[in-house]
């Protein structure tokens, strides 16, 4: 049968973000594909060089709409490292609490998108409903539902008082009971298993070749998690397990993310239990001493890399951001071969695309 090339995107109903793809098909079989990125490039790295450090926090928060908090946390940690500023333990714990809530809502959002792509709209409605519980907690404590504005250089801008705890505990409890029930359903749902098991498996070798990180790498048996491998406080004091699966297919990615939601719920409770007393921020000087630093942290989608160089002024001399989704996107053409046309949405959803993150 002859080969047909289908251009998809950059604007199309499958994804909410602009991504251009060219997929070669022969009948129902996908032969290969290629990607074109850059439709939402905003020049954030260059813009950062024209703003002072305080303004840059709000700029890097807008790299991604899902994992906005981890970007500001990593940037603040980079600046604090150059300043040799020790962040109060309470602020470190509050940052970690937000990071884990963000992981929960990011993974639930992904589960919903995967379910919608395979036709399980009920699961989509449930996961997105449950995700609101995590968003409510974040809105209540920071004032922002998506853009939290929670971080500042030297600590955090919010604090938890006694009035917050009942609401947080109630929401986390409700989230736990609803999520665990939902994940039990998901893990036994024959329709989901049939659509995802064995679809576009990626080997451990390919993952390492492409430098893929996060849940996609862990689903292929690559045991990597920055929270454990390169722990920034308070993760060195928290106990959690890193979930891996050997298969590397869309089903393994679903299980890895589902287990990570459970781990994050445990971590949230652990953080609230061990939350130290004291101040939540320290006053930071305006100018940052000359130097350069690399900070790696674990975003919901994998390892987030920040390189910051300072020339002693109040503006960054260079800021380089490497987001986890960029490597995962490079993996897409590899997966777009020897699959059925109907599996394309599953492959696309499986890597947890964030084009805004990758383009910056």
């Amino acid at each position: 049968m002859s080969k047909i090339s289908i251009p998809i995107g950059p604007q199309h109903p499958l994804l909410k973000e602009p991504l251009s793809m060219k997929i070669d098909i022969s009948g129902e079989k996908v032969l290969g594909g290629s990607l074109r990125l850059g439709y939402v490039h905003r020049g954030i790295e260059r813009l950062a060089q024209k703003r002072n450090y305080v303004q840059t926090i709000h700029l890097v928060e807008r790299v991604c709409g899902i994992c906005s908090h981890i970007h500001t946390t990593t940037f603040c940690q980079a600046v604090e490292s150059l300043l040799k500023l020790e962040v109060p333990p309470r602020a470190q714990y509050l940052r970690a609490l937000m990071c884990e809530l963000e992981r929960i809502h990011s993974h639930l959002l992904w589960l919903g998108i995967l379910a919608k792509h395979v036709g399980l709209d009920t699961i989509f409605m449930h996961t997105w409903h449950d995700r609101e519980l995590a968003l409510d907690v974040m809105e209540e404590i920071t004032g922002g539902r998506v853009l939290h504005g929670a971080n500042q250089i030297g600590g955090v801008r919010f604090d938890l008082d006694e009035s917050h705890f009942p609401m947080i505990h109630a929401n986390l409890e409700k989230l736990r009971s609803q999520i665990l029930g939902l994940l039990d359903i998901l893990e036994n749902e024959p329709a989901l298993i049939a659509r995802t098991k064995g679809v576009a498996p990626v080997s451990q070798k390919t993952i390492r070749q492409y430098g893929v990180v996060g849940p996609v790498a862990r689903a292929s048996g690559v045991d990597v998690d920055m929270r454990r491998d390169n722990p920034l406080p308070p993760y060195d004091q928290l106990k959690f397990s890193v979930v891996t699966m050997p298969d590397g297919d869309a089903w393994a990615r679903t299980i890895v993310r589902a287990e990570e939601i459970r781990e994050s719920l445990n971590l949230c409770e652990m953080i609230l239990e061990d939350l130290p007393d004291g101040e939540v921020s320290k006053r930071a000087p305006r100018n940052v001493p000359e130097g350069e630093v690399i900070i790696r942290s674990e975003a919901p989608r994998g390892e987030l890399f920040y390189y910051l160089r300072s020339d002693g002024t109040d503006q960054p001399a260079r800021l380089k951001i490497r987001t986890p989704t960029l490597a995962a996107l490079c993996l897409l053409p590899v997966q777009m071969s020897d699959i059925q046309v109907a599996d394309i949405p599953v492959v696309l959803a499986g890597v947890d695309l964030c084009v805004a993150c990758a383009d910056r």
Partner: protein
Amino acid sequence: MTYFRKRFSIISAIFEALIKPPETVDYPKGALMLPEGFRGALLFDTDQCIGCGLCVRNCPADALHMEKKSRDEYKLIHYPARCAYCGQCEDNCRHGAIYHSNQLVKPTDNPAGLIVVLKEKKEA
């Protein structure tokens, strides 16, 4: 039985959803509960402002602008359409002159509303 439970496990969730009340708020008919710390419409206390310009210095969206001739003669302007409602001006202000309320920003069809003069102080 196990087969039935596995095959139709989602059905119980569907029936549960049928009897649940709606989760969404019927806004604007229903009451919208915004948290206390919600960063909504910007409020300004003219008496507290000393014209130091700290709010302008760190504004990430260039939404605040100050035309300053001297300590006693300045004009502080807010551009609501540019504002990112990040709360940085509130953090920077040491006198509590500029702060967020937990009210939503209402849309306007008045072009004059795009430039708000927060304070205009003229030399006595």
